[in-house]
């Protein structure tokens, strides 16, 4: 057997690295912009394309899929080649993967500000982009498994297992959460409705955190941390143990995002139980990482990359301890919908994902350029300003979260809400939001300094695009086994890939088969006789509500607490959402819940409020929406939308699509007339009329017919 000579592809690693830096700065800048809008609404620059509801998804998508996504690919392409002693399977696939992914990001950056959104959090991109993501993800998978097949190292190091789990699970999650019925090129309706849609979304949302923000990063931690520290991982056995337990438990924890909603109680409890169990494997990883540095803490003092890793692991430990606590119903009752959750995710995002990425970048870039880092001093500065940034971000947000959560629930001795006006609780935390954006600015400054530092490093040397390496090829036969055993082994050897591919196909086929009953048979969500489909105008208004991203600040689910029923009205029932494609429960109350807002105010109030929120609610941080008056409602889509809803099982009368626009006009004119009587002149064909119609409808169906609702629904 001869030593084989080959090369590692460093160019693709470098490209993903640069993309990480560029998108990191963009994503975080947008984050800073949305953060500032929360205390100075004018920071939306007076444009619909840069208003909170539209660019908050841009921020989350950019930092998750562009910044972290590119960082994952950078780390995977670097470590996979070296761990398997093989160049990536195909340079062409690597290139397609890289450029395809950047194209997806660019299309997201264009479509989200334009208001093309599905409204599912972290899955906002519309159906054509969803398809592109699927294709590129498959390219990534083929490239990865191809490399695994042609490996020269029999043992798959634990990091590779984490990468495999990432690939398989994200593929399934993305597909299941992308079942959309296209209406037009950039508009679709989810096939699921209401509570079922909510469950799919948070099954996805939770596991996206697990398998996009956690497992690939754990894999990278298991590769890069030992490399940086120059010592093996504390316990390889523990790494394997915690890998398997982590991936088996994570999948079941999603329902903790829907506590106290109308999701069936047993599903909520299941989610809580698995969330608590998650502490063990999560901390297994954190402890394994930190103990890898045992006896090497002197290196941490000197080496800035290790400093970043230590803070990353500590943040991971804190976030994964806090997560299970937040999933306890009592704590969730206070924390949910507040800034506490925002603080929680940012400890993970800024600390774990951000700092680990920075550590890897500082370590990896000089290596593939065979040079030294331009300035260790600047890297040290980045570390401290970044850490300070995290503190300035997290502490005020926790403070704001506790404050607001408790204010919402506070009663006077007489048994009345102490803060009946929601706005009072918003104004209370504005100083915290100012501090938070200072934290974000510090963190972003660090990233810009890092980019300068790494650019200088890259410019000072030449990239080793093809790093030579050599290794023995894999032995074909395993020693000391009988002939039959040999064949059996050989078959198995090639099996992981076939196994993965076939099981994935089976999952999808099986999934489709299981889906069918959901579409065709009437669902067993309790139906409420008085709940009717939206009128054509309300449906159009609902789509505007989705376009403007209202769901980013306003929830639509009243929890069964006295503090909420006093404030908002009757708590939400599963049966009220059966025609909601998609559900719009939201996950954050920057403003009040809107599920019972219908009929609460006059049309004129809504008009004035949308045109200038401060005129109705002095001090409000909601931005004005003047473009809703300027823009005409697009009624060409009405018939198609009605037909799509009929396909999805919404019981519009046969042929309603043909008269829908007539209906729409009648209702719009009624609202315009009502506004006119209040001295507001607006044409009935404007978007604002549709959105008012929708808001006035919200949650009113069961008000009209109270006796039909059994208490257990």
């Amino acid at each position, binding site marked *: 057997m001869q030593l084989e000579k080959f090369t590692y592809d460093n160019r693709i690693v470098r490209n993903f690295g640069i993309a990480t830096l560029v998108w990191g700065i963009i994503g975080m800048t947008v984050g800073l912009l949305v953060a500032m809008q929360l205390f100075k609404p004018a920071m939306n620059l007076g444009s619909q394309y840069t208003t909170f509801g539209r660019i908050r998804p841009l921020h989350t998508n950019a930092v998750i899929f562009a910044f972290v996504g590119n960082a994952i690919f950078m780390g995977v392409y670097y470590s996979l080649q*070296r*761990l398997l002693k093989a160049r990536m399977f195909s340079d062409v696939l690597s290139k397609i993967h890289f450029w395809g992914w950047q194209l997806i990001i660019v299309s997201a950056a264009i479509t989200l500000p334009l208001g093309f959104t599905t409204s599912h959090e972290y899955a906002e991109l519309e159906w054509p982009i969803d398809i592109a993501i699927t294709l590129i993800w498959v390219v990534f998978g083929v490239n990865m498994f191809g490399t695994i097949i042609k490996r020269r190292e029999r*043992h*798959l*190091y*634990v990091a590779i*297992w984490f990468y*495999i*789990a990432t690939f*398989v699970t994200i593929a*399934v999650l993305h597909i*299941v959460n992308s079942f959309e019925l296209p209406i037009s090129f950039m508009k679709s309706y989810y096939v*699921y409705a209401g*509570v*079922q849609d909510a*469950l*799919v979304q948070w*099954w996805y949302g939770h596991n996206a955190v697990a398998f996009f923000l956690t497992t690939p990063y754990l894999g990278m931690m298991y*590769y890069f941390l*030992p*490399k940086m520290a*120059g*010592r*093996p*991982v504390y316990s*390889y*056995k523990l790494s*394997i143990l915690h890998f*398997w337990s982590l*991936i*088996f438990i994570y*999948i*079941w924890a999603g329902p903790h995002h829907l506590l106290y909603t109308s999701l*069936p109680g047993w*599903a909520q409890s299941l989610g809580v139980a698995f969330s608590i169990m998650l502490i063990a494997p999560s901390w297994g990883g954190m402890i394994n990482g930190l103990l890898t540095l045992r006896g090497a803490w002197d290196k941490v003092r000197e080496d800035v990359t290790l400093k970043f890793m230590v803070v990353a692991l500590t943040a991971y430990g804190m976030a994964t301890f806090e997560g299970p606590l937040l999933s306890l119903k009592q704590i969730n009752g206070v924390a949910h919908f507040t800034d506490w959750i925002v603080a929680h995710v940012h400890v993970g995002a800024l600390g774990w994902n951000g700092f680990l990425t920075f550590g890897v970048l500082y370590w990896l870039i000089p290596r593939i350029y065979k040079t030294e880092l331009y300035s260790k001093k600047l890297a040290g500065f980045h570390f401290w300003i970044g850490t300070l940034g995290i503190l300035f971000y997290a502490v005020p947000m926790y403070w704001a979260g506790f404050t607001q959560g408790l204010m919402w629930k506070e009663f006077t001795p007489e048994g009345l809400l102490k803060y009946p006006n929601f706005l009072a609780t918003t104004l209370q935390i504005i100083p915290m939001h100012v501090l938070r954006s200072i934290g974000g600015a510090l963190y972003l400054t660090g990233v810009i300094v890092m980019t300068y530092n790494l650019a200088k490093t890259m410019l000072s040397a030449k990239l080793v695009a093809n*790093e*030579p*390496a*050599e*290794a023995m090829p894999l032995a074909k036969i395993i020693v000391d086994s009988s002939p039959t055993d040999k064949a059996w*082994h050989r078959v*198995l*050897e090639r099996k*992981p890939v076939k*196994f*993965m591919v076939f*099981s*994935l196909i*089976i*999952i999808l086929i*099986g*999934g489709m088969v*299981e*889906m069918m*009953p*959901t579409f065709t*048979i009437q*669902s*067993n*969500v309790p139906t409420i006789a008085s709940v009717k489909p939206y009128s054509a105008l309300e449906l159009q208004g609902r789509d505007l509500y989705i376009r403007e991203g209202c769901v980013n600040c306003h929830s639509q689910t009243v929890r069964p607490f006295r503090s909420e029923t006093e404030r908002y009205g009757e708590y939400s029932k599963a049966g009220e959402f059966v025609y909601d494609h998609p559900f719009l429960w939201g996950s954050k109350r920057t403003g009040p819940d809107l599920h019972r807002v219908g009929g609460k105010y006059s049309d004129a109030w809504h008009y004035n409020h949308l045109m200038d929120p401060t005129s109705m609610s002095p001090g409000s941080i909601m931005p004005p929406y003047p473009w809703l008056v300027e823009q005409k409602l697009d009624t060409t889509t009405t018939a198609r939308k009605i037909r799509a809803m009929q396909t999805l099982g919404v019981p519009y009368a046969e042929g309603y699509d043909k008269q829908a626009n007539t209906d729409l006009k009648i209702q719009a004119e009624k609202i315009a007339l009502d506004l006119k009587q209040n001295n507001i002149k607006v044409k009935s064909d404007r978007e604002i009329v549709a959105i008012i119609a929708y808001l006035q409808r919200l949650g009113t169906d069961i008000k009209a017919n109270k006796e039909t609702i059994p208490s257990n629904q």
Partner: protein
Amino acid sequence: MNILYFLVGCSVLMALVFLGAFFWAYKTGQNDDTHTPGIRMLFDDGIADEKSEEDHFSS
């Protein structure tokens, strides 16, 4: 709530895939040695490092 059956089914299938992968790893001896892989990965860079790996195993 038919969706629950679907999601539970999906999750179980994924868990089975991972279980299959786990059994594969176990049967093919991926986990037999839980010591050297952690050390070996430290020596996978470039050609110069190849030597030190051999040294490591010959000692």
